[in-house]
């Protein structure tokens, strides 16, 4: 595997992830890929895909994990911290300012009416993401029963997530092992 072309400094990690954080409307990962692979060339395509699958496997938001992984890879703990802070700080301030504006002016009928529409559309984005993922080839197998169980258990029966996952994930992984034999 070819090595990354450039090794960024901690300051660069902070700045570039700040840029990614503030440009990412409706999904940050495409912007992160653009920055890491196409603009900065800190990772090649293959390295990016491998890092992403690791990030999806680990707990926590994928994009936050991506920042930590990339930071760790180039600059250890300091790099991870710099990338994480870059990603989170500016968006954190922006979202709180929006929240404050909404609290201040949200009672105005026109604004609350607009927000009912925005909330409905935001829900549609989540539904679409779920349906897109459900089209994964991995679900065209008996393993799909675990997707149904998760939906029924969490959405319909409203089971608490922690205990549910502690039962469902070992069962699901065991089935994957058994099926591969």
């Amino acid at each position: 595997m070819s090595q990354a072309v450039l090794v960024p400094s901690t300051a660069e990690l902070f700045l570039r992830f700040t840029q990614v954080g503030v440009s990412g409307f409706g999904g940050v990962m495409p912007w992160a890929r653009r920055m890491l692979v196409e603009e900065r060339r800190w990772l090649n395509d293959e390295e990016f895909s491998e890092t992403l699958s690791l990030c999806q496997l680990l707990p926590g938001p994928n994009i936050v994990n991506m920042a930590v992984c990339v930071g760790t890879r180039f600059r250890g703990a300091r790099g991870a911290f710099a990338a994480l802070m870059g990603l989170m700080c500016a968006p954190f301030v922006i979202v709180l300012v929006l929240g404050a504006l909404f609290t201040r002016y949200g009672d105005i009928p026109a604004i609350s009416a607009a927000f009912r529409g925005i909330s409905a559309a935001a829900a549609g984005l989540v539904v679409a993401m779920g349906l897109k993922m459900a089209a994964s080839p991995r679900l065209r197998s008996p393993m799909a029963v675990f997707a149904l169980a998760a939906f029924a258990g969490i959405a319909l029966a409203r089971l608490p997530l922690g205990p549910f996952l502690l039962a469902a994930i070992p069962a699901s992984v065991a089935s994957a092992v058994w099926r591969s034999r």
Partner: protein
Amino acid sequence: MNGPLAQLALDFSLLSLFAVGGVINVLPELHRNVVEVRGWMSGAEFAQLFALAQASPGPNILVVSLIGWKVAGLAGAAVATAAVCAPSCLVTYSVARVWQRFRGARWRKWVEDGLVPVTVGLMLAGGYLITLAADHSAVAFAITAATAAAVLMTRVHPLWLLAAGGVIGLAGWA
């Protein structure tokens, strides 16, 4: 540390460790915790904060910053955000340091094959629950359905869809 701050720190750091695949997957649990267990806000308020986080730039994990802020002000926002990031980041940092050793390992594929279906079910559950929380009229349900269809069938930028929802809402139909 006062009550709500300690609760935010505890609840959200546990949530952090279960958030495999991202915050959208723990949306049902976040909703259950914030609305049903703690009673910090109504389902409609929860859906509004979620929409705000979706409409602003950055990771959508920032919905927890808004929840923390609603519960306990700026300190609440900081505590909630740190709590939801720190545990998973420490895990990721530890694994990132040794991950290269496991490239091509068979168990890696098994774990992925097992995790994906559960993750998909959680994602669909999140969509279902946030739709119920956000939509209180036939038009609202239609906006949700049309937005989902537009994402699946076109390459339109999500921000335009949020804006379209806002315009329809502004017209007083939602």
